[in-house]
């Protein structure tokens, strides 16, 4: 297996500075197909910024991000999505004025251009796929409700569903269980375990039990730099990590 084929995503020397402040500083890591990578780190470590850089929301100052053969840093956000990278935001962002069905329909991967959207029709396939996804995210009975009426946890699920329907090869989730009740958290963990099976996933999460449960490898970020990388056990034993988390 060549280096090219071994990794789905290659992040090399990624740097971004905001007026001199380096939020992400010369960061490199590699993601294999079908792996679940968890990024942890204290607040302000640059975790969300890393995801923002990969999906094109923030423009990098330096470095490269290669997804298969695509240099993502040169692409527009929607082109990155088409290449197969999906992104969930930290606060649930769903379209509150539209129904759950319509929310999922907008994410249905067809009719992306202006005229494509005008010509788009709800056919059997669309219908079926949306029902399928709705079942996966426990919202099959809520399809005709406006998204505004969903609970916080249900909105999180809906957003995950909106990503699933596009079937991305790389899924990036920013704190998917934050702000959920214990019951919702458990259900979400199940959901995530199911959906991470056939794809690569990058997750930002604080809940260590949850991380231990799902992670293949863990990256620890601190002040925009990579502090440690490896299995959960390795990271936990790393004196540098202990210093940052428990130290002064």
């Amino acid at each position, binding site marked *: 297996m060549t280096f090219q084929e071994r990794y789905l995503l290659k992040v090399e020397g990624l740097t971004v500075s905001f007026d001199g402040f380096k939020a992400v500083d010369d960061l490199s890591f590699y993601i294999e197909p079908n792996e679940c990578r968890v990024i942890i780190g204290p607040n302000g470590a640059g975790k969300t910024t890393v995801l923002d850089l990969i999906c094109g929301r923030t423009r990098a100052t330096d470095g490269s991000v290669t997804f298969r053969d695509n240099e993502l840093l040169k692409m527009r956000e929607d082109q990155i999505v088409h290449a197969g990278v999906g992104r969930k935001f930290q606060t649930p*962002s769903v379209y509150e004025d539209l129904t759950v069905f319509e929310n999922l329909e907008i994410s249905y991967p067809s009719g*992306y251009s202006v005229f494509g959207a005008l010509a788009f029709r709800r056919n059997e396939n669309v219908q079926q796929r949306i029902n399928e996804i709705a079942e996966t995210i426990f919202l099959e009975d809520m399809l005709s409700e406006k998204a505004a009426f969903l609970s916080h946890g249900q909105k999180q699920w809906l957003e995950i569903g909106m990503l699933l329907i596009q079937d991305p090869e790389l899924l990036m989730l920013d704190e998917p269980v934050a702000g959920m009740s214990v019951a919702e958290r458990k259900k979400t963990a199940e959901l995530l375990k199911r959906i991470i099976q056939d794809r690569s996933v990058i997750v930002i999460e604080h809940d260590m039990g949850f991380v231990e449960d799902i992670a293949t490898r863990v990256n620890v970020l601190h002040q925009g730099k990579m502090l440690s990388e490896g299995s959960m056990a390795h990271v936990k034993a790393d004196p540098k990590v202990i210093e940052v988390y428990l130290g002064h």
Partner: protein
Amino acid sequence: MTFSKTPLFSRSEIIGFAVLAVLIFLILPTFLGTFRLNLFGKYLTYAFVAVGLALCWGAGGILSLGQGVFFGLGGYCMAMFLKLEASTPENTSIQSTPGIPDFMDWNQLTELPAWWIPFHSLTFSLIAVVLVPVTFAFFIGVAMFRRRVGGVYFAIITQAFAAILTILIIGQQGYTGGVNGITDLRTLNGWNIRTGEAKEILYYVNGVLLFAVLFVAHFVRKSKLGRILIAMRDQEDRVRFSGYDVASFKIFIFCLGAAFAGIGGAMFTLQVGFMSPTLVGIVPSIEMVIFCAVGGRLSILGAVYGALLVNWAKTSFSESFPELWLFGLGGLFIAVVMLFPNGLAGIWTEQIMPRLSKLWTARARRAPQTHNASTEKRGAV
């Protein structure tokens, strides 16, 4: 799930369109004389703009304070054709240069500027009525939306364009007719547009065009593009990261609004018989927004009623209490924003419809709940 084929028109939408058609094609012509009918025809030309705004602003969240620019460009394209037709060498034989529009002669121009020449052709002019505003909107849209300028910044910059065009038209009076505009328009391909009969025909033409525009707008709203617009207004980033090129959707809807406004402007010129910078600038542009807001910013049919109602009120007030009108209009701006953010359409769906349906169910004595009971209140964005 019962999401199989959603029809293009729901039953209540068919009723809505039918009621408006009856009003425009039967009730108004029956009860109004030629003069008043022509006046309402003028109000309806503003409805074209308001419908465009219902798409751009109501659905897409893009507030343009420069729709007067597109209305004006459409109107001027039409007026230039009519003016050239009226300025035959015979009609203008007393001028020092016969055959050019009178205001050019007054400004010591001795020949027709090159960019006026194509407007001798009716076909060219009719195409220009739509294409000039759309091209202009396209350039503004590309420049602004590609750079992600939106919200209040977009509003201010479009307002600046309204100011720029007005100053330009007034300043270059030799080419544009200046502050008086292009006046004294007489015939369209030899057909006298100033007779009562012509005015009635133009009223109907205007009505038919308005319905064509309403159908296009309705189709857009009902398509996936319509839902994407609303999604963009609420969560622009989510739409972008669902794989859509947000800017191209904004550019499209802005251009469509400009096309509607251009058609409205041309119909204004035909029915009223002149075009002037007073219809282009900051003040008329922002008033066009209020037509849409009064109707209910999301509702395309509401936009028509809004345009009719506000203009009718303006005419009646300015006739009897001119000094009260500005208080009324100012109060309307504040009231529609603070008290009725969903305008007439909101009052209809939130107040009247539930009561009607309650009345209906009470009479029918049926136990099961009706479906439209959950018309929820939507705060404006």
